[in-house]
């Protein structure tokens, strides 16, 4: 490490927002020309990632070439829907609202999920609110999920998720992300547009997405940016205050669930810094000091990043072939 390396702290994530906006705008235009598409479609959740992506697309292409999709379902928050609409209106883009609940119901999403929950909490009814919380890894144990549920009387119930119920709940809720992506590609095909994926660097790197769900896209304009930097762009692009200050949620479960609870087990600002530290070869000792945690915990955090990268490989993987099919024009080199 060179003697002039900056100390590990929030400053390392500082971003030249004007330059980055210009760079991403150029990237969007170049990608569309490469794929011969006329505009972009993206899902709008009201969250900072999709809002920033929409604003960047408008910078690059103008509002007329950006189409937004609000896709609420039974468990998404009302706030997300109204904030998504507010962003679309502020940006002046055309958008549609598609209620996914009937389709998700028909495909069995809620029924499969509810069956698994009821296997652990026999009194559970769909009026209850539920979420999943990760635990174990940060304490040096093995990562696993707990089911957290709130009955209508307000009481909280918790149970560790055994294999069958864990897989079944995740599989059932994955329908949501996949169905959203199905609608995005429908409109993209209809308009001859490309589909934008909105993961930030943390999500992309750590596999926090559904394969062929929100992991699917033609271009991902903020996948290289840390969450902190996405928030900085949100301010720079003049997005609504509520978007700039929102806490990252999964908006997948009926009990409000922070992304840190579900996946990262650390507040997002700290995960950002940990990932940056990992990418720049900083030591566990330095990370511990920066995050005000023990060195042992910092080592666990850094090891956890590797473990999640390993799982993410499957999520990122293209279909595997028995032998390479050699044809220069068949596949685009991936960036």
């Amino acid at each position, binding site marked *: 490490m060179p003697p002039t390396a900056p100390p590990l702290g929030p400053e390392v994530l500082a971003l030249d927002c004007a330059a980055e906006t210009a760079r991403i705008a150029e990237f969007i235009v170049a990608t569309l020309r490469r794929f011969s598409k006329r505009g972009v479609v993206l899902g709008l959740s009201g969250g900072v990632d999709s809002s920033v992506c929409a604003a960047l697309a408008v910078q690059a292409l103008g509002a007329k070439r950006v189409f937004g999709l609000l896709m609420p379902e039974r468990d998404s928050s009302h706030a997300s829907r109204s904030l998504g609409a507010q962003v679309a209106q502020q940006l002046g883009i055309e958008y549609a609202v598609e209620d996914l609940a009937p389709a998700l119901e028909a495909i069995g999403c809620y029924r499969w999920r509810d069956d698994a929950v009821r296997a652990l909490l026999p009194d559970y009814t769909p009026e209850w609110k539920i979420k999943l919380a990760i*635990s*174990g890894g940060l304490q*040096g*144990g*093995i*990562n*696993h999920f707990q089911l957290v549920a709130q009955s209508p009387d307000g009481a909280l119930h918790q149970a*560790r*998720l*055994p*294999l*069958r119920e*864990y*897989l079944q709940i995740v599989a059932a809720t994955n329908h949501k992300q996949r169905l959203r992506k199905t609608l995005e590609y429908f409109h993209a095909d209809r308009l001859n547009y490309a589909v934008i994926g909105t993961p930030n660097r943390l999500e992309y790197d750590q596999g926090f997405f559904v394969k062929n769900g929100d992991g699917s896209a033609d271009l991902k304009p903020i996948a290289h940016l840390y969450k902190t930097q996405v928030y900085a762009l949100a301010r720079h692009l003049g997005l609504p205050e509520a978007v700039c200050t929102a806490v990252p949620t999964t908006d997948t479960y009926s009990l409000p669930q922070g992304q840190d609870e579900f996946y990262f087990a650390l507040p997002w600002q700290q995960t950002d810094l940990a990932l940056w530290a990992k990418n720049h070869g900083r030591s566990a000792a330095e990370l511990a000091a920066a995050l005000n945690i023990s060195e042992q915990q910092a080592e666990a955090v850094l090891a956890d990043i590797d*473990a999640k990268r*390993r*799982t993410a490989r499957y999520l990122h993987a293209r279909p595997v072939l028995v032998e390479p099919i050699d044809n220069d024009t068949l596949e685009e080199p991936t960036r």
Partner: protein
Amino acid sequence: MSDIRQTIRQYIDDNFLLGARDTAYADTDSLLDLHILDSTGVLELILFLEETWGVKVEDAEMVPENLDSVAAIADFVQRKQATAAA
């Protein structure tokens, strides 16, 4: 004890390695480090321990010291059986 280890080994070979004989691992090797087990695999292992020996794994017991090698798992099963019998 070696019966328990052998049963565990057979399960790992059948369920995680899908019968392939290309991965050698010692009884004390870390299954997580060798990527034979991941966190979902641990849940499968826990189900196997429950079904085979009636062992119930508590949240606090889900640590590498109990589950991360053939030897550790076998020791853990023996301790749980001894407590249950007591």
